[in-house]
């Protein structure tokens, strides 16, 4: 086994691994916990739940976020819901079924043991959140309501109107603030991690910049947890919040942490298409719309008649035509790719010919306007606010957009990266979703990691360090890291080029979207491997960052983040190039079935690709963690 990537999966039956592991891990006794300092970076669902729980256990925690308040983390924006194998609806759900669906949905590219644990603890999350006052939807008997989500055959999704993320985050944030009041957690907001510090191969702290005063400060600890979210903004346009970025994970990568499966990105099929070049981000329209809306494009290319003027027999309901069994409800990746195919072929609709129709006229005629408005009213309003069009009268226009990133820092079963003492949780790690994430499973994973997994596994890692103090922040490893951060900031301000950071971010996004987007091929990926570094070089020479480093300076903040996106993008291209198969969100034109579906190559690619940084300008090294499937039989997905 490659010593760098020992997943440390416990032995035994899949259903007993976690239980056995919890028993066999070293514990830190209650009075010793306060002797340990833990840094948690990120206060989204994963980070806030972890910091709160570690604080409750008695550890001394320092929590960091670049937001002004923990409650603003990107998790707040999740709409649809959170899965849990509660089986409250008595419709046949179970831990095993959630496990099975998640492994299959991930197109057999995730670790069975991790996924099973996730399904096991999913039920505790709902109990915890409810006790915190999260107002999940309820039925008239006062019990919790569930719905089916994203094509699942059971109703296991808990939801809170269209604000599940906000309500869950308020729960986790309030638990965090309770610990801040109790003095177990020290909260640093508007503080951005700019370097991870290691000594003798072990994580010993971080360096942060205060975004208001510009002060650069070292922080040391016995362990460092990154809960810093996903990297979807590498595409510039995505449904992610504006400030989401890869910097924390990337700087950890440069300090030795392996980055796994960077090419696994999820493109969500139902977003509002870009309306112009100035578009700053894309807005997700809930997946539930596909339950009643019919997707079509005009049969004639470049047809510029209004939707209503196109007669029925000149419309192509392409999903219904190609997938009679699932129709408009095919999984996300299939729906997205098909939209791209028709738009690329010249059938796109809207002013920029960059969308497909999602038409509710049939549903309105069938169920009545009131019924449709009761179901989707808030979404229709949101659509109208953004586009100025009334979806009750004219079909919505939708197009796929980047939504989630399955890749991330490689972690073992304990959620520790290959760097000792450095952990990654939530969207920042690569762990549970394989090559494709199911709807409503990201919130579940973030909270599982933070509330119920990391608080156990981190103790095992700490137990051996009892009696040792954290590395002092006067140690050269810290002073060097600080000097590095200051140097880089000075360099950005001195570059004095001609174009803004956003300009280059947009250009990079275009490159990544065109070549490492919904469908990839060898030529495009090879092009990306050369084009990205070339653009990066221009960026470093010609970007213009004004102002100073000792005030709030948003261009300066972005400059560093975009620089990291450049390096990540190149790695994504390499990863996609070497994965000579299609799986989940990674679709290679060369590898498809005769019907145009993703064609996996289990013989050669049933593994995790974990990349090692080998220094500026050097080709990174690809390591492989083989995946074994003992409990779920590998099969080809089919939605015909």
């Amino acid at each position, binding site marked *: 086994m490659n010593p760098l990537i020992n997943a440390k999966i416990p032995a035994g039956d899949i259903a007993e691994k976690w239980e056995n592991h919890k028993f066999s891990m070293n514990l830190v006794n209650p009075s010793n916990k306060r002797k340990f300092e833990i840094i948690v970076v990120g206060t989204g669902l994963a980070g806030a739940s972890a910091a709160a729980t570690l604080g409750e256990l008695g550890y001394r925690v320092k929590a960091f976020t670049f937001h*002004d308040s923990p409650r603003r983390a990107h998790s707040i924006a999740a709409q649809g819901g959170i899965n849990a194998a509660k089986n409250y609806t008595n419709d046949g759900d179970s831990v095993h079924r959630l496990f099975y669906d998640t492994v299959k949905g991930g197109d057999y590219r995730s670790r069975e043991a991790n996924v099973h644990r996730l399904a096991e603890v999913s039920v*505790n999350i709902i109990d915890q959140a409810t006790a915190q006052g999260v107002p999940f939807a309820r039925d008239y008997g006062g019990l919790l309501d569930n719905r089916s989500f994203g094509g699942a055959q059971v109703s296991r999704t808990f939801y809170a109107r269209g604000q599940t993320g906000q309500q869950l985050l308020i729960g986790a944030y309030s638990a965090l603030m309770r610990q801040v009041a109790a003095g177990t957690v020290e909260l640093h907001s508007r503080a951005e991690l700019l370097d991870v510090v290691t000594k003798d191969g072990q994580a010993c702290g971080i360096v942060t910049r205060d975004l208001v005063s510009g002060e650069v400060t070292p922080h040391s600890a016995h362990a460092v947890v990154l809960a810093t979210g996903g990297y979807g903004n590498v595409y510039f346009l995505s449904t992610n919040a504006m400030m989401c970025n890869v910097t924390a994970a990337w700087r950890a990568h440069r300090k030795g942490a392996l980055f796994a499966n960077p090419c696994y990105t999820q493109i969500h099929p139902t977003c509002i298409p870009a309306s112009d070049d100035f578009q700053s981000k894309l807005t997700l329209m809930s997946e539930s719309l596909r339950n009643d809306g019919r997707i079509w494009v005009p049969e004639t290319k470049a047809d510029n008649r209004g939707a209503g003027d196109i007669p029925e027999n000149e419309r192509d309901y392409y999903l219904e035509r190609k997938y009679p069994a699932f129709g408009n409800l095919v999984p996300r990746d299939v729906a997205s790719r098909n939209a791209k195919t028709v738009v690329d072929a010249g059938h796109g609709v809207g002013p920029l010919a960059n969308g497909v129709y999602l038409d509710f006229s049939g549903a309105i005629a069938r169920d009545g306007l009131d019924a449709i408005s009761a179901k989707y009213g808030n979404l229709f309003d949101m659509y109208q606010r*953004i586009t100025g*069009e009334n979806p009750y009268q004219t079909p919505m226009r939708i197009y796929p957009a980047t939504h989630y990133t399955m890749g991330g820092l490689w972690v073992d079963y304990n959620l520790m990266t290959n760097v000792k003492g450095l952990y990654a949780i939530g969207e920042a790690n690569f762990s549970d979703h394989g090559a494709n994430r199911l709807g409503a499973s990201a919130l579940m994973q973030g909270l599982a990691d933070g509330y119920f997994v990391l608080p156990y596994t981190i103790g095992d890692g700490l137990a051996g360090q009892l009696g040792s103090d954290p590395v002092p922040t006067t140690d050269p490893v810290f002073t060097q890291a600080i000097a590095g951060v200051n140097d880089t900031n000075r360099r950005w301000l001195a570059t004095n080029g001609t174009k803004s950071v956003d300009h280059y971010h947009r250009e990079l996004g275009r490159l990544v979207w065109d070549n490492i987007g919904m469908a990839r091929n060898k030529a495009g990926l090879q092009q990306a491997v050369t084009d990205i570094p070339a653009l990066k070089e221009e960026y470093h020479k010609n970007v213009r960052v004004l102002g100073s480093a000792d*005030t709030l300076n948003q261009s300066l903040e972005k400059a560093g983040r975009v620089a990291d996106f450049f390096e990540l993008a190149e790695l994504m291209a390499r990863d996609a190039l070497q994965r000579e198969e299609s799986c989940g969100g990674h679709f290679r034109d060369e590898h498809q079935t005769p019907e145009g579906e993703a064609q996996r190559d289990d013989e050669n690619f049933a593994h995790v690709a974990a990349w090692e940084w080998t220094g500026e300008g050097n080709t990174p090294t690809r390591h492989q963690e083989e995946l074994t499937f003992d409990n779920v039989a590998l099969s080809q997905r089919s939605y015909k």
Partner: protein
Amino acid sequence: MSNNAEIINVTIKVWRQDGPTSEGRFETHQQAISTHASFLEMLDLLNESLNDQGHEPIAFESDCREGICGTCGVMINGRAHGPQKATATCQLHMREFSDGDEIVIEPFRASGFPVIRDLAVDRSPLDRIIESGGYITVNTGAASDANLTPVPKEASDQAFDAAACIGCGACVAACPNSAGQLFTAAKIGHLNLLPQGQAERWKRTENMVETMEEFFGSCTNHGECSEACPKEISLDFIAFMNRDYLKAKVKNRALTGQK
């Protein structure tokens, strides 16, 4: 149908302030903009051209740009979050404006929210209010099965109406007294209406109200807060909070044996 974008020309009068203690000033710029653009995309474009001309971009905050994180928020022509009802700054689009309009943009103005730079303000007092009691004490792992305690749908729905608050601080900015009542009432209402929130109800109410008073002005029932609220949190929650506060004063003393 406004499918066709129009380009309009607007005059932007925007507040610039280098730091918390510096003196501020208005700056005037012209901007041509498509009516399809969002208000913040208009500011993005303006910043891009300022940067091109060698002028520092205007600092303003936003993140989700979907009206849920509460990061955005400026005064637009004297109104918190601008002219459109139930709309956060990031959801406002330029089709709400006309060719030739002058748009005055200022930071949220409130003594509890000091300016950091340009349009960015410090809203951390809102976190202090939460810290003082805006939670239910339940350690991770200590919760019983979620369906053990049924919650009447009406109570749950009402709690939700309060929980919809996004913590943007527009209520404070809109209030002539810079009062923090609507925010605090929403947070108290959310928890106090739920069975899970009963054990700490009185302590929570007293602590949160008194922390609020340390940072914010007093409420004189203007109702501007609810008008400006992007989530249309109802003034009824303030009445609810006031009632609970009075009760709390009595009950908390009784609890500590002071009758």
